[in-house]
């Protein structure tokens, strides 16, 4: 996913001279081909993220479309004020390409694990937050970033995530994708939780439970319309995210449902990481499993939640 997104920057740069790549101190050879073809638009600016955000704001004010790239935690925690003020307050088209969203950097410990990034980016006015599920979707997303108004936070997984997105579903920033039709439960996913949800849905099907999947690649702006459509007649809405429980996808979905539904809120299950830093290493998969976000654990949690949930028929709040 990461290489694909990077290579797309090169492709976009070839198409549009406004495009810049700005890295802090990425791995040796990052976008080497672009650095050769467009050396003036391939900028490596050092481990000075706060400055890089401000600099990219200045460049965007002059008509460039900078793609700023480093590890997710440094784009979010370290320079939050610059992101808020320089990018969001000015509503500038800077794209933040965040390497290692969630637990990708599991072996490197809590300093490198972006487990609250969706919450804090989502809190910022004018910010768009997108979490593609695989390389193909990352590619389709990047195609759309050229002319999107305002800043975008792009949360990337790592290389090698199974490709499960489909070209025929298309891709539009801000539009959710219904991957499986709604049934007894609708699982709402973002990023690489889609892969786990698809496997969990198969396990649930084997138990006679029909599980729909709504892939919410864009967490902000949230596709409330698609969400309301998907949950009609379902008994349970389960959100799956590689993120702490506060402020992420589960919160966004809950907020949207509360805002839109006057009564008869559906039963909801929010599956997420716990509200603490991860003090284990290993791999992304092993940490997800440890915290109940493997396909097996998801299927078990959903099946367990279903009998306890009351059938409800969500109604649109009449205003």
């Amino acid at each position, binding site marked *: 996913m990461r290489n694909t997104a990077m290579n797309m920057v090169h492709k976009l740069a070839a198409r549009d001279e406004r495009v810049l790549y700005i890295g802090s101190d990425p791995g040796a050879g990052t976008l080497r081909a672009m650095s050769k073809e467009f050396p*003036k*638009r391939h900028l490596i*600016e*050092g481990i*000075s993220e*706060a*400055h*890089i*955000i*401000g*600099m*990219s*704001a*200045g*460049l*965007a*004010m*002059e*008509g*460039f479309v900078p793609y700023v790239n480093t590890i997710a935690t440094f784009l979010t925690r370290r320079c939050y*004020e*610059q992101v808020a*003020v*320089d990018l969001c*307050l*000015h509503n500038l088209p800077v794209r933040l390409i965040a390497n290692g969203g969630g637990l990708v950097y599991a072996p490197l410990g809590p300093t490198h694990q972006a487990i609250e990034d969706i919450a804090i980016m989502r809190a910022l006015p004018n910010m768009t937050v997108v979490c593609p599920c695989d390389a193909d979707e990352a590619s389709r997303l990047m195609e759309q970033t050229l002319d999107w108004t305002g800043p975008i936070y792009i949360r990337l997984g790592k290389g090698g995530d199974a490709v499960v997105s489909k070209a025929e579903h298309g891709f539009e920033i801000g539009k959710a994708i219904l991957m499986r039709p709604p049934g007894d439960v609708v699982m709402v996913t973002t990023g690489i939780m889609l892969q786990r949800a698809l496997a969990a849905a198969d396990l649930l099907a084997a138990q006679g439970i029909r599980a729909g999947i709504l892939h919410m690649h864009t967490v902000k702006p949230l596709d409330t319309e698609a969400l309301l459509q998907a949950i009609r007649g379902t008994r349970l809405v389960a959100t799956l995210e590689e993120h702490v429980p506060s402020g992420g996808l589960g919160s966004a979905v809950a907020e949207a449902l509360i805002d839109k539904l006057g009564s008869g809120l559906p039963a909801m299950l929010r599956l997420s990481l716990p509200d603490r830093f991860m003090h284990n290493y290993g791999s992304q998969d092993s940490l997800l499993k440890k915290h109940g976000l493997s396909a097996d654990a998801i299927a078990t949690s959903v099946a367990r939640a279903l009998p306890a949930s009351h059938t409800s028929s969500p109604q649109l709040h009449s205003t």
Partner: protein
Amino acid sequence: MTQISPHAEAALTCTLDERSLYLRRLVLGSVRSAGRGHVGPALSLIEMVRVLYDDVLRIDPNNPRDPARDRAILSKGHGCLALYALLADRGFFPLSELDGFCGPDSILGGHPEYGMVPGVEASTGALGHGLSIGVGLALAARMRERTYRTFVLLGDGEINEGSVWEAAMGAAKHGLDNLIALIDYNKLQSYGPTDYVLPLEPLADKWRSFGFAVQELNGHDVGALRTVLKQVPAVPGKPAAIICHTVKGKGLPAAESNADWHHKNKLTDSELDAIRVAVGDF
């Protein structure tokens, strides 16, 4: 303790001309109307902003977004009253707007906002942002082969921020000789002397070591400012840092080098009388 530079001593004794007094009247009028405002940080800046807007910047008040214009960012956003006075006086918006400062229907807040105030190039107030944005603007000029210059006004307290020094490294890396940082070195920040809060000396050496062409002057000396600010680039291939030795609250004896006047919530009758004595009717 900081060794007192001759420029700093000169700043203390510098006599102000009628235009400088007039601009101070505009600033203090806004404070009187709003019942609040950063007085000290604005009064130390007046001559720097005045020379920029009167004599240096290539700008058109009737076309504030002219792509060919020079860019100026007030990174120390709390000094905005000086900027507002100059922008109003130069016709970017009506002088009457100054009376609405910080009011509910005003375009003029306690820190400048991009998109709200014609002539304001960036929203500032959170310190340590302006120089990085300036690097981006100057780099864009370089990449697009445009001839505009970028000026960034920084506070001395502001340069406590690490991001300023990140930006300084970036500016030097790119050899941005179309970028000029002006440091309002009034030696007093909100709590007290910069020497006490976080010592900056040797300040000129710091900027020099970061790759800047450095000059020092009396920041209230209009003639000296004019001479230095008209030389862009100061040294080809290097960004410039101009350390302007100033006096916080300059021109108002009660406020000079007095931390109590960093921000005022209201002016008493006796303070209003003292202002009239210092700058004339306002």
